[in-house]
């Protein structure tokens, strides 16, 4: 069974991967955005976004989606970071998974943008990668893991 990092630990993945030939992905399976939008019964399915697919079409459905995967075909294409933030800002609370070819050195940024699950192309480094989740423990910006920017949290403003 494939494995991934979820909420800071390595676990087995219980989701069925995407199958582009299927016309009706079922509960427990991940659908492409196109498949997913065409599904009559969306219950229990997950949906995967590619870099060119903005998340806005999902906004009306966010409360009923259990898994959104944002795929990174190349780690340098950073659109997914903004997609994740927009999904969280619009109230998505389900699993938000990074998939594909991101690298462990991006884990802190991904987590801060609202990802809580990380499925890496190369599973062999998953345990070692956990360490990168906490490369930083202090941040300047507000983000999903820290709702207030540092300037609102500094102990005492200078008088």
């Amino acid at each position, binding site marked *: 069974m494939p494995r991934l990092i979820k909420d800071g630990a390595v676990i087995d993945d219980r989701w069925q991967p995407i199958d582009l030939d299927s016309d009706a992905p079922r509960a427990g399976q991940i659908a492409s955005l196109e498949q997913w939008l065409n599904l009559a019964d969306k219950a229990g399915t997950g949906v995967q976004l590619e870099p060119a697919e903005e998340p806005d079409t999902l906004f009306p459905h966010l409360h009923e989606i259990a898994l959104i995967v944002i795929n990174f075909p190349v780690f340098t294409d*950073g659109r997914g*970071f903004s997609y994740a*933030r*927009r999904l969280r800002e619009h109230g998505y609370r389900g699993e938000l998974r990074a998939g594909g070819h991101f690298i462990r050195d991006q884990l802190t*940024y991904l987590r801060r943008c609202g990802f809580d699950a990380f499925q890496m192309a190369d599973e062999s480094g998953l345990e070692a990668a956990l360490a990168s989740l906490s*490369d930083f*423990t202090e*941040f300047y910006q507000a983000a999903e893991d820290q709702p207030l920017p540092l300037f*609102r949290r500094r102990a005492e403003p200078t008088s």
Partner: protein
Amino acid sequence: MYIYDQYDQKIIDQRVAQFRDQTVRFLAGQISETEFLPLRLQNGLYLQRQAPMLRIAVPYGLMNSTQLRKLAEITRVYDKGYAHISTRQNVQLNWPALEEVPDILAELATVQMHAIQTSGNCVRNTTTDQFAGVACDELEDPRPYCEIIRQWSTLHPEFAFLPRKFKIAVCGSTEDRAAIHHHDIGLELLANAQGEIGLKVLVGGGLGRTPAIGSVICDWLDKRHMLTYLEAILRVYNKHGRRDNKFKARIKILVRAMGVDAFREAVEQEWSTLKDGPTTLTDEALERARSFFDAPDYAVIDGPAATAELDAACERDPIFGNWVKRNTLSHRMAGYRIVTVSLKSTGYAPGDITAEQLELVAELADLYSFGEIRSTHEQNLVLGDVPMAQLYPLWQRLQAAGLATPNIGYLTDIICCPGGDYCSLANAKSLPVAEAIQARFDDLDYVYDLGPLELNISGCMNACGHHHIGHIGILGVDKKGEEYYQVCLGGSQSKEASIGKILGPSFKQEAMPDVIDTILSTYVTLRQEEESFLDTYRRVGIDPFKERVYAQAH
């Protein structure tokens, strides 16, 4: 200047630890070249022709003497004993060893410095007016805003993998000394009809292969919204900027493709979810940032008396007098002057400074200028607050160290990129051209007679030497494997920004001093009294220059 608290220090220290681990993994073969590339770039490390190049951030060009001494020490221990001031106010080392870069970064962190995001496709060091806080034409000090932007952009989780690099500049004065029209985002502090100071926002300016002048997308923005508005712009760019072609990936291309109105609309749309959120600046945050840039403890000086004494000293020693005239500027405090330390003496690469010179400038800053030093995008250093009575001893020390060439703002104050001597992207060398021009025009009286003149040289169309916005720009080009130089005229980085026009076919390196000579004598012939080179060019256009230059060449 800004002083780190425990939060800033922790973030910088954790960054050093992160990069140390990444370097170890890279050297152990656990990170591929491709994966390591953006990691090292975002820590300032390029791999170049001769050796790696490390670009150290100087946030908005401000340093203290302790930092300068540390830089001197680093160049001695880890490099060849000199550093280079870049056109974006940063400091570059040309010869560090990859394995030692984490140690260099750790050294920097001890004096509140770093190399974060000095290259790579992320938000770069924010630049500003080198005379911020002391210039007479300033509406409001831009540095607190730069510092707020520095903190916001440092390790921003959403914008570390943009389509391309992203540069922000802030200006708070009548004259624009920060080239805000030529940045991805330019911010100008200005008052609205009610007299309240806010920000004008320009977007999509830039140099490189497609030079562009920024377009206004917001006439006046309440300061408290600065960060959320920036975030909205960055988000539109991150989502829609081109990623298929790195030469079309800058925000200027996106703004042009969408049209500025559609771009503004997209930003407003994105901003509607961010506006008034937690990233909205508070009065306390603005006040805290401002408090670091309070005026230093100026002495109360009798201005007219100090000026009279200085005038007398200038008369007694005309060489000193000339330096005062050329390399110092009036200050907003009575009895003080702003001093530019020239890094443009013939025979030395523009912007290069040795470890000994760094230490000397640190010492002089402590003695005469409250221990602070500024770097300029013209690749010089500035001591911002020197009492008039101290100018003479200061000048003597600078003069002895080769740092008092009286040419600031004149022809030989050349801006020049490292070019083919160091840079692997170069089409041609740039430093020898700069040197040949400086050597040819060694007659200072002629140079002064030419008036204010900006001559900028880049070794390729990436335009690190800002050739498009020099009054005279020189660009290295490759002609069937040979190094040639194209000349453009009429660029300007001022508020009346313009991009230089190409004169015609390019020239060989040996011809360049003659070509420049012809251009300058054409100007001298055509100028009306008191008219600057740029004004003459704007009046007569490029043709007279073209005729004279090519008539002689053929």
